[in-house]
């Protein structure tokens, strides 16, 4: 098979070109996302410094806030910076669905087992 990224008349790469006006719009969007990512990171750092770790409900809510903010940042990076949002929806699903399914499962099972393990080593001291 010929490598299509080396073909001069590669339709996919050539069709991705855009005009100067479209470029200006895209750049505005890039700077907007940059601002959002910077603000979210700043919020995370300030929360990290301000709130002290404890075994309270507040702390577990803060932990979840961190995780949600991280997922929002990840979504901006993948969908805007990596242009996955502009790809055909079948490619989006092929990339995202297996990953989310597998990592969701792995996280659930490992953390559940981890706490189970913690309980065991506590009760057999």
């Amino acid at each position: 098979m010929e490598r299509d990224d080396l073909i001069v008349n590669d339709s996919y790469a050539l069709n991705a070109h855009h005009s100067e006006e479209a470029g200006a719009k895209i750049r505005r969007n890039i700077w907007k996302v940059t601002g959002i990512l910077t603000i979210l990171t700043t919020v995370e750092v300030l929360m990290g410094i301000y709130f002290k770790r404890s075994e309270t409900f507040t702390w577990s809510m803060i932990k979840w806030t961190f995780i949600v903010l991280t997922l929002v940042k990840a979504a901006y990076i993948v969908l805007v910076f990596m242009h996955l949002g502009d790809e055909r929806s079948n490619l989006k699903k092929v990339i995202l669905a297996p990953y989310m399914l597998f990592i969701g499962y792995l996280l659930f099972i490992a953390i559940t087992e981890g706490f189970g393990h913690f309980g065991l080593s506590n009760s057999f001291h």
Partner: protein
Amino acid sequence: MGGEASKAISKEILWGGGQSPFSVSYGKMMMWYFLVSDALTFGGLLTAYGFVRASSTDAWPIGEQVFRALPGLEGEYPLIYVALMTFILIVSSVTMVLAVEAGHRNNKSGVVRWLGLTIVGGFFFLGSQAWEWSHFIHGSGGSFLLAENVTVQSADGQTHELTKGDAVYMDHHFGHLAEPWLEGASNISLVENADGVKLIEVGEHSHEAALHGLTLNKYVENESQVEGAEALKLWNARSESFAFGANMHDNEYAIQQAYANFFFFITGFHGFHVFSGVVINIIIFIMAIKGVFERRKHYEMVEKVGLYWHFVDLVWVFVFTFFYLV
């Protein structure tokens, strides 16, 4: 963007053969597949970290307590340095996406400029990580474990019942001399008298460090300072287990060595990705300058390398959250 992917093409034609059903080139699709598998590797590492941490019965160090130093400055700046590293990586991700955008307009000088800035950002990040590793490896003062149960009162009046195996932390000056002294340096001696404990170094630059105080729970919640006679009680109950900074065998930050090992492996593996990303960026940078992509009439290679570079940023976003914040 736009291009082929934004065109409305019926399912029958898309999947009918003779073209990519995803409307992307072979190379770009394979970069995405590689990134999915690489993301699973990092996902697995962070999950393993979560498992070990959740199953740990000893207290786990807190990011803002461990990482609170800035180069060349005394004092405590929790998380500021890592936040700076995160910001550097986000900015270099932005310059990369601007290079890709310039490529879509066949703007050679734009691609070269933004790609160059991306490489600079990559080197800044690698340098920051090198400093952070160095700081982590050298540590700040070191710790020793207790050989017996001790009850002490901290400077704030609290009573602490410590058990055998608990960690006690030395200050920076005392630890600096304690490390060579324990290794048997002949020019360092320990002086214990009514005034307290002192380590004295003689030789070219002779100096001494007194045991002013010791710290409890330094890297976990409720850090407290123990001084004077109470500190001596802890010093006299010391075991042979001392740890200074971190290496592959022991670390001063946690009872569990897994903490240091995860730090080295996860940030090291990520750093290796950044390093290879910088190398690939430099190759693409040179190709862009030489006009390879101009002759090819498209800059898709910049887009593919850009995907990898954004992925490195993406991984850091997760490492930052799960290693430093949560």
